[in-house]
């Protein structure tokens, strides 16, 4: 027997789960809300972790930043897994077709030698910096507090892995596997990269997860992405290097999108209390100096005598961004 169940108009007993009702009232909830709010357990843990017996499995005391409600840190993109992967799949399709066209037609061979060398020297070693970004954000996913912030940090970690893989692909297109070996050698031993490597390693041992968020997602990305995917990218385009821009388009789009998410987190956390504001402002100041120091030799290689003015423009824009978020620098 076929039953046409559609024709039945029935009144639901409730609209959503109780923990969502307690926050937003009994009305239909979005998939982001049902898949995010209060998903992390907060009460009654059975055993103290062997790896940190003084704290609970999920514990607010893993950051000095304090929030009355950690779910105030919502994601303006409203990414749950499905929305996230579908958005990225669209972007990867565009990136894949760019790479395919460049490889099939040998477009990289048409690059001026100077432009190609610059990309090999500057972009390819950045894959290691991206891997550091992956590690920082996976740390936050594991030890942060509240799904609203830990969930997008995993997406961010995986995005960093993807960017590291896109940069590896750039190296392979430009100069085959040797490009990756040369970049690794420069990263480990080249003078140009040592301040950056030191900084990235220093962030790897930070314990406070919100401090990592500030150091990595706000400061390091906030200063390095404009330098590489805005200023340097413009130079590539102006000098016959459009092929490079095609291969890094994902990164410039991604920085725009994720920057808005990072801003939303910082703004809400800083507005919560004078203490948070002071703490985050201090972290920005603390990490801005070594990042600028690390970017100085890179900018010099990329922009020659314009390096100082490029870096100072980027710094000014970054400072203005932070001020707008309510920080005091």
């Amino acid at each position, binding site marked *: 027997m076929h039953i046409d169940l559609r024709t039945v108009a029935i009144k639901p007993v*409730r609209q959503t789960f109780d923990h969502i009702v307690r926050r937003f009232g009994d009305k239909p909830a979005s998939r982001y809300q049902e898949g995010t709010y209060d998903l992390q357990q907060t009460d009654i843990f059975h055993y103290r972790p*062997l*790896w940190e017996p003084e704290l609970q499995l999920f514990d607010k005391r893993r950051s000095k930043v304090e929030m009355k409600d950690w779910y105030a840190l919502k994601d303006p993109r409203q990414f749950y897994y499905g929305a996230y992967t579908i958005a990225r799949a669209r972007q990867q399709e565009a990136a894949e077709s760019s790479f395919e066209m460049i490889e099939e037609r040998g477009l990289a*061979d048409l690059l001026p030698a100077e432009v190609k060398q610059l990309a090999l020297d500057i972009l390819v070693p950045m894959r290691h910096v991206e891997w550091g970004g992956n590690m920082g954000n996976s740390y936050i996913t594991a030890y942060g507090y509240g799904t609203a912030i830990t969930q997008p940090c*995993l997406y961010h970690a995986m995005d960093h892995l993807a960017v590291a893989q896109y940069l590896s692909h750039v190296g392979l297109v430009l100069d085959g596997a040797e490009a990756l070996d040369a970049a*690794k050698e420069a990263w480990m031993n080249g003078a140009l990269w040592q301040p950056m490597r030191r900084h990235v390693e220093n962030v790897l041992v930070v314990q406070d997860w919100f401090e990592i968020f500030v150091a990595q997602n706000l400061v390091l990305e906030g200063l390095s992405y404009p330098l590489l995917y805005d200023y340097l990218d413009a130079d590539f385009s102006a000098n016959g290097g459009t092929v490079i821009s095609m291969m890094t388009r994902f990164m410039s789009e991604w920085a725009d999108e994720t920057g808005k998410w990072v801003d939303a987190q910082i703004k809400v956390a800083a507005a919560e209390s004078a203490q948070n504001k002071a703490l985050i402002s201090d972290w920005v100041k603390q990490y801005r100096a070594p990042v600028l120091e690390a970017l100085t030799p890179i900018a010099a290689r990329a922009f020659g005598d314009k390096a100082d003015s490029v870096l100072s423009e980027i710094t000014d824009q970054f400072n203005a961004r932070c001020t707008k978020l309510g920080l005091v620098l």
Partner: protein
Amino acid sequence: MDMHAAKKKMSLKEKYAHMTRGLDWETSYQSPEKVFPQASFEGIKIHDWDKWEDPFRLTMDSYWKYQAEKERKLYAVLDAFAQNNGHLGVTDARYINALKLFLTGISPLEYVAHRGFAAAGRNFPGVGPRVACLMQSLDEIRHAQTQIHALSNYNKHYDGFHDFKHMLERVWYLSVPKSFFDDAFSSGPFEWMIAIGFSFEYVLTNLLFVPFMSGAAYNGDMATVTFGFSAQSDEARHMTLGLECIKFMLEQDPANLPIVQKWIDKWAWRGIRVLTLVGMMMDYMLPKRVMSWKEAWEIYFEQNGGALFGDLARYGITVPKCITQCTIDKEHISHQAWATFYQYGGAAAFHTWMPSDEEMDWLSAKYPNTFDKYYRDRFTYWREQAEKGNRFYTNTLPMLCQVCQIPMLFTEPDDPSQICYRESDYEGEKYHTCSDGCKAIFDDEPQKYIQSWLPVHQVYQGNCFPEGTDPTVAGFNPLAKVLEWYHLEHGKDNLDFEGSRDQKNFDLWRGMATKNT
């Protein structure tokens, strides 16, 4: 361009190696011990992380591509299911209680798996396992969310789903799955991989998902079939990760063998105890049965696990030592668990009932050695009593095992009429466990298991009442107050299926769809 035409396309293996291996480096500005502080405290020795073999070689771009396709398909089904009142197409409303057990007991743990794999993905010093763990972490949040999204529509229409996170942390039987994952996550990263990556994902997950989802298909629940099978497609990747991980640990150093074996013994038993709930679901909660718990156990544990352990024998690994007990238990545990939930049905967030004669015949056929001999008479008696209006509920709460936290309902291996109790002394206190398996786990790490937050002890200590409760007032009803603290709505979420709001609504709504009234 001839040169390019001649350039050979990179193979999958080469591409993955270039894209992933070599991203990491040996740190020198900070010591590796500081960067990876959890790498050595468990005693596992790894000499060369580069020996790790990646079983699935997914780069992020392919991951997004394939996963997005799965998500598009899945949400199309969920939308259609909700729009068409698909919930009215299930065999009968008793079935929905299996989903309640799933949402309250399993989905929140998918979430913990997500956090735990993120930690493993940060803590291993090798890039290969780290990337694989992070992809699994991403898959696990997918599973938590797709399950919540699929069951969201059931929550709108039926009781028992409405406060799953709050209940998981508090309700007595939900501490069984919760403490299992708390236990794994509070261990180090290598034990986590044996506990979840190997024992749960490889050895036991088929027993959870395949029967559950085939059961959903048999009972007309296409939304659940779809999320379940869609989740399982990631599971194949997770299983190969678990297997690779154990091989890697065993190949790296012979001193790892006894540690790994101990963890396998522990986690196989921990996992099997949790799966008691699945056994009960298969044998009692599905109106239309797929296969019995015992049959599923024989296919997915005895045959498949036998092949697996046969293969691992070359490293010196032996079959988990609980196997003898399990061979006896497979004939009993589903009946014992259902009998317990039936009696404590006043304090459970789903409905219970006694099987019909036809269902009992099926159970007899599937369990020729035990069902008629030990269970049928009791169940028939309870059913007759209920039909006469004497539905019986136990108003106390059962004593729990210190390790698995399941009520003391299992029987002695050599006497199915005798409840099994084991006892250990630690620092002058006595601790009770349900079996030799749980006692061995307790005795090996008593300092961990004395911490267990046992829901029934806590009730008796007065820790499970709403704030401001005064237990000294006249007519104080402790059980009612505990249910209130659980957010369990008495008369709606609990008690017998017969007479429940779920039953009435389902009949009413289905009647509207099939009759002209």
